[in-house]
């Protein structure tokens, strides 16, 4: 089946992230086989697919943690695959990344984790930095846990702290790698609500890699379904539901037809 043609935001929003014909292999294993995606300004795109289809690799390519074998990746119009390390870091400052396991620095407290990007990249005073950390903690409801180490808080709290850290530099783009995986339904809902709140308040552009169909439906403007390293179909949840493709139907229903 050919991927569904799509104009981001029905032509209303300029693409902020463009991924064109990207291939990526690890050793002999081809993970991405010519992937094409576009995400418009303020849009939330969820990327779904079975485990091992290269969804997380796609996010790491967008932030420049991996280099593609071929193809083009543009962030805010800049081709990131050809940037120097210094220029790439400038682009990275505009992107927040919530990792699958939150990836909080385990030798630092929650508060220090949040202050880390601010300390390194913003020229605000110590008092302003403390105030900003307090704001971020309040945003994710973790004011009381500021002095705890990551090992002393639950998985859901780690995700929330990771999200707060990703927001520290007020990024234009947020990348979420499995934001609700391993969480109970209530905590997963809290994370989804936080994401929706961000969209509403800051009109932030997001790419969400997830297996959680319910969460994806709740937070996304559009959904892209990946199969065998390619985008099989993309569109709204209703577009996917109307599809007659057996894989799409199976994925939505969670069982074989």
């Amino acid at each position: 089946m050919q991927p569904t043609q799509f104009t981001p935001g029905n032509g209303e929003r300029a693409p902020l992230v463009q991924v064109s014909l990207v291939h990526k292999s690890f050793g002999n294993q081809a993970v991405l086989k010519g992937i094409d995606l576009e995400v418009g300004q303020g849009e939330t795109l969820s990327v779904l697919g079975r485990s091992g289809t290269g969804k997380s690799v796609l996010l790491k390519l967008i932030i420049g943690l991996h280099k593609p074998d071929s193809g083009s990746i543009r962030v805010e119009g800049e081709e990131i695959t050809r940037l120097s390390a210094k220029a790439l870091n400038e682009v990275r400052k505009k992107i927040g990344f919530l990792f699958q396991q939150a990836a909080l620095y385990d030798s630092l407290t929650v508060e220090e984790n949040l202050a880390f990007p601010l300390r390194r990249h913003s020229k605000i005073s110590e008092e302003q930095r403390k105030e900003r950390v307090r704001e971020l903690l309040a945003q994710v409801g973790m004011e009381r846990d500021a002095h705890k180490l990551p090992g002393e808080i639950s998985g859901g709290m780690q995700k929330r702290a990771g999200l707060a850290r990703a927001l520290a530099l007020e990024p234009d783009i947020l990348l979420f790698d499995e934001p609700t995986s391993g969480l109970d339904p209530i905590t997963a809902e809290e994370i989804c609500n936080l994401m929706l709140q961000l969209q509403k308040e800051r009109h932030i552009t997001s790419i969400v890699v997830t297996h959680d169909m319910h969460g994806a439906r709740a937070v996304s403007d559009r959904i892209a379904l990946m199969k065998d390293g390619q985008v099989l179909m993309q569109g709204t949840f209703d577009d996917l539901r109307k599809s007659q493709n057996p894989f799409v139907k199976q994925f939505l229903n969670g069982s074989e037809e």
Partner: protein
Amino acid sequence: MEPLTILCSIAALAHLTAERGLLPFQKLQLQKIQRSFVSFFEWFGNVGIFFGRLVWATITPPYEGKEFLRQFDELGAKSLPLVALAGAATGVVITLSTRDSLVRFGAKSFLPAVAIFSIIKESGPVITGLVISGRVAAGIGAELGAMKVTEQIDAMEASAVNTYKYLAATRVVACVLILPLLTLVTDFCGVLTGWLTHTLTDPISLRLFLDHGFKGMAFKDFLPPTFKTMVFGLIIGVVACFQGMRTSGGTEGVERAATSSVVLASLLIILADVLLVRLILTFFS
């Protein structure tokens, strides 16, 4: 024959033999040898690239002064009790074993000189290198390995932080600078316990012991062996950071990174010592 030539000949021979009509299990064995051979060179190549990036990260601004001081304290100050103990034990062992030999040859009066020369010129630096390799290389390998498998290093890079500069360069420079200082501690404790051991059997004042021991010793006997430990520090830092930062495979990978850091660093320290002793003898004797 050069070791490199021998290794190349083995590889060529293995390749040629593999082409001939061998039994499948023999071919499998040969392929294994070939793979190990290739990965041996690959490892050195990758360490070389890593080292190049590390040097560049170290010399170019901005500098990570605060993190360097933290590492200096973490790797250096916290290793003090360990090297003091190792130095003390070395002093006792060297004095006891040397005394026994010297008594047999009727040269007991040389004991302070032999013990002090032995500690300062060789035992002190090597023991410090090996002890620090055990503590620090395992620590760095495990810490960076755990950070790698839990995506903390990726998170740092995603936050626009140069991890070569922040994580590796600070640790390597701390290792290089801390080793000579810790060697002084090892030497001091070794000489002190050497005197204590000596004086328990043949009472001698500390002053007389030191006078006899340092008689005939010049700075060229003391400085090169002490400063050669900077190379040991470089080996410990580079090997441990390299092994840690390329960890994969979860908890098992972290364990592998920690173990391989210690084993490789210790092995390379001993090999480097052979070369350094030869160089010191050539240039300073």
